[in-house]
């Protein structure tokens, strides 16, 4: 049993972070250079942390499996980043952003963390502007905003449909400056394959050099994982091809508790699947829902072209069911409503798709306005599908997109392994059971720029500056284990390809641990995943050598981890006998088909402790709501 201590500071919610910052220990500026910090991953959270820690004077070693730090998947975020600036004078505040996020997460997140997130959100915008991020502006030269799902205020800052790209490049340039100054050393094309724990404390990592195949060891006083989410467990998702859970999963197996693995987000506006050979799904930004209206035909199996369906025969189901939020209802609700319509046989031209229609907005505002707002997204749509969305509505369908679950962290973003910090999507902390749009960029940068640089100082101040060297016995032991696993993967030489097994896992996950879950399906999923895992280790064919560029080996090792994580996702979903946010258990719904929470029994974070492959122990962190009253989420 792990002792979960969230280390939430005492005091009023509004004062916790301020008083914590004052109470935390500081490292003398002259001593900071005696401490080494490893940052794994160079996305928003990783790059911003590496840059900020370098600025403070720590020696940072940053690792990425990409050829360049600028490639991390944060770059694909399209729509925007939230902040409580209230520049629009529409009633926003830190408290409202906090409240919307807690409510949006269906009351399954830690109040104190979310409040801090809202509190530091404004500083992020200031920081990015100063870095030269070209946010959209009004004619008067001030920053422009738009709305996103789950909010009734316009608090989203954006740079066309490429906000993630611009924010990541901002963090990347800040990190580059520290590389230039010698405070950050960047290791590219390195994939983290294990964390090294010496006497119960994280002291370094073991990585594979993806060019030479060497297994390399690096030590430090603290390790930060900022390695993103695990939506690729579904095979088809909006995550980039190389996004994977390996870093957090291997850390989990070394003792870091994994929290709320079943809290996954299915994004309502993605492009539908075109066929069996599809490798990845494409997201269409949620910002499109500002001006697009979602609908299906009122008639089942309606094969007419969308423009031939008259207005009175269209069901604008989000506007009908949720008149207050309408097309801007939160993601989980919108996705489920789409599934409902399709399950009812009313998918677009018989496909697994619904319409996202801009005709009204084009008539109201003119095509040039829509072009200015979403031009690049419309181009992406046309490139992929061959259809022109200015002329006929887009077809969209929900797809796995983001994972709210991740490694459990305390208020300081430290995992249950002392010295191992987790930032960004890789941790579980701020989004509860459902993340609101434009909040991922906010959280990644909040963690990296404004939280970890403080909390890691507090940790390091209590640590001795003596560095455990990378030739320590424990490092050699872990290195040997990683090499053995590589050798084993390459020696199976079975009949099934890595992708073949991954696709099969993906189908199990999508059908049984996807948008709608039930006890029977989850139990079946667990049995099927266990069997598939066994088959993998007997019959997979990982080709090539270990001492070479070997993309097949890279994928193989990642799938090995998904085959364990997938089971835990199903187990977590099975254990949580309620519906909340993205976790919808079909047994637990209101007569209107809405998620039915069980606050009495399930107001806690599930933190799973690894015992052995396929064996876990459940630890619970109770959640207390003192500022926000637990209430049934309503967007009607």
């Amino acid at each position, binding site marked *: 049993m792990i002792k979960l201590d969230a280390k939430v500071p005492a005091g009023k919610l509004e004062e916790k972070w301020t008083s914590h910052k004052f109470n935390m220990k500081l490292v003398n500026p002259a001593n900071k250079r005696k401490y080494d910090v490893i940052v794994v991953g160079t996305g928003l959270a990783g790059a911003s942390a590496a840059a900020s820690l370098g600025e403070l004077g720590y020696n940072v070693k940053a690792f990425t499996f990409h050829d*360049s730090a600028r490639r991390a998947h944060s770059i694909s975020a399209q729509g925007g980043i939230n902040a409580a600036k209230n520049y629009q004078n529409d009633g926003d505040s830190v408290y409202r952003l906090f409240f919307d996020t807690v409510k949006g997460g269906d009351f399954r997140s830690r109040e104190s963390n979310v409040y801090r997130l809202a509190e530091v959100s404004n500083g992020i915008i200031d920081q990015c502007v100063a870095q030269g991020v070209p946010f959209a502006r009004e004619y008067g030269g001030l920053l422009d905003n738009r709305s996103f799902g789950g909010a009734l205020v316009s608090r989203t800052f954006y740079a066309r449909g490429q906000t993630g790209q611009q924010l990541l490049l901002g963090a990347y340039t800040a990190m580059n400056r520290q590389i230039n100054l010698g405070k950050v050393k960047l290791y590219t094309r390195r994939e983290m394959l294990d964390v090294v724990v010496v006497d119960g404390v994280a002291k370094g990592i073991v990585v594979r050099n993806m060019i030479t195949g060497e297994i390399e060891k690096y030590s430090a006083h603290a390790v930060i994982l900022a390695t993103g989410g695990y939506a690729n467990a579904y095979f088809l998702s909006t995550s980039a091809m190389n996004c994977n859970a390996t870093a957090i999963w291997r850390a989990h197996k070394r003792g870091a508790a994994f929290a709320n693995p079943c809290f996954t987000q299915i994004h309502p506006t993605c492009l539908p699947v075109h066929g069996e050979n599809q490798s990845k799904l494409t997201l269409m930004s949620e910002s499109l829902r500002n001006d697009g209206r979602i609908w299906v035909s009122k008639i089942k199996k309606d094969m007419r072209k969308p423009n031939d369906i008259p207005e009175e025969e269209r069901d604008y189901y989000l506007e009908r069911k949720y008149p207050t939020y309408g097309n801007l209802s939160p993601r989980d609700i919108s996705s489920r409503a789409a599934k409902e319509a399709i399950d009812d046989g009313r998918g677009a031209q018989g496909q697994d798709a619904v319409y996202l229609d801009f005709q009204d907005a084009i008539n109201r505002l003119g095509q040039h306005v829509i072009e200015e707002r979403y031009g690049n997204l419309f181009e992406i749509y046309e490139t992929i599908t061959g259809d022109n969305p200015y002329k006929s509505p887009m077809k969209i369908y929900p797809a796995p997109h983001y994972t709210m679950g991740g490694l459990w962290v305390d208020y300081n973003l430290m995992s249950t392994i002392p010295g191992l910090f987790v930032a960004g999507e890789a941790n579980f902390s701020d989004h509860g059971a459902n993340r609101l749009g434009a909040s991922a960029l906010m959280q990644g940068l909040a963690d990296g720029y404004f939280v970890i640089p403080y909390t890691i100082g507090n940790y390091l101040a209590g640590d001795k500056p003596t560095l455990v060297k990378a030739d320590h016995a424990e490092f050699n032991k872990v290195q040997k284990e990683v090499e053995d696993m590589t050798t084993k993967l390459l020696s199976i030489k079975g009949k099934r390809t890595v992708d073949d097994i991954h696709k099969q896992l993906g189908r199990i996950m999508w059908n049984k641990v996807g948008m709608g879950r039930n006890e029977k399906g989850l139990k079946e999923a667990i049995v099927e995943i266990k069997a598939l895992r066994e088959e993998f280790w007997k019959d997979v064919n990982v080709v090539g050598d270990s001492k070479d560029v070997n993309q097949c080996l890279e994928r193989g090792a990642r799938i090995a981890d998904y085959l364990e994580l997938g089971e835990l996702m199903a187990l977590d979903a099975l254990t949580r006998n309620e519906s909340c946010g993205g976790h919808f258990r079909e047994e637990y719904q209101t007569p209107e088909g809405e998620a039915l929470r069980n606050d009495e029994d399930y107001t806690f974070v599930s933190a799973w402790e690894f015992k052995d492959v396929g064996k876990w122990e459940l630890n619970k962190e109770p959640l207390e709501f003192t500022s926000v009253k637990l209430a049934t989420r309503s967007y009607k």
Partner: protein
Amino acid sequence: MEHKKINLTLKIWRQHGPKTPGSFVAYKVAVSPDSSFLEMLDDINNDLESKSLEPIAFESDCREGICGTCGLVINGQPHGPIPRIATCQLHMRNFKEGDTIYIEPFRAKAFPIIKDLMTDRSAMDRIMEAGGFISVNTGSVPDGNAIPIAKEIASESMDAAQCIGCGACVAACKNASAMLFVSAKVSQFALLPQGMPERYQRVETMVKVMDEYGFGSCSNTYACEAECPKGISVKNIARMNREYFMAKIKSTNVKV
């Protein structure tokens, strides 16, 4: 909806390592027109792996044309025949039954081949590390609205900032020049008030490192703009030249 498959002959560059000679290898495929170009390669790789043969090494990540990881020369054109997209956004409906397609890595002195279709483009990062930033520390910055920026200036800066760092401009250029890439970053910052304090030093250091890594000069063929997946304008090169000239007059920061 799956459409009828089209039959193609692919001639793909295979090269085991940086030092070994490479050659084109032919593959016959039948592919759905709805499939993307890279999904076609995924499929070939799956087939090769099922025969215990080594898959074709190629890089991609986001598959949405924004991360800049992918980059193939397709029938002689970086990112293929359709303008303003990255390789990952190219779909097979743009090819015809019976077509032969040549697939090669980006070729430039500064981009050595690692394996098959994978190249090392890290020289671009070295240029960025040299000066492609605004020197502000986390924290002590003014309010985001403290300095108004005209909408059209922000928009022009964004036009340059959307460079995805893929290197197609270098691969397209007969001189393997990185001027479009470097000028995009120089322009983004030179247009904004935040970038003013370091504008001269920035352009000097970036150009210096660009030259050190063996990128060629610009001879105004505009092939870079034509092949750029984001349509970055060569006007940025003109702006960079202007910045560089002014820097030579005004700044004494960088010894060249």
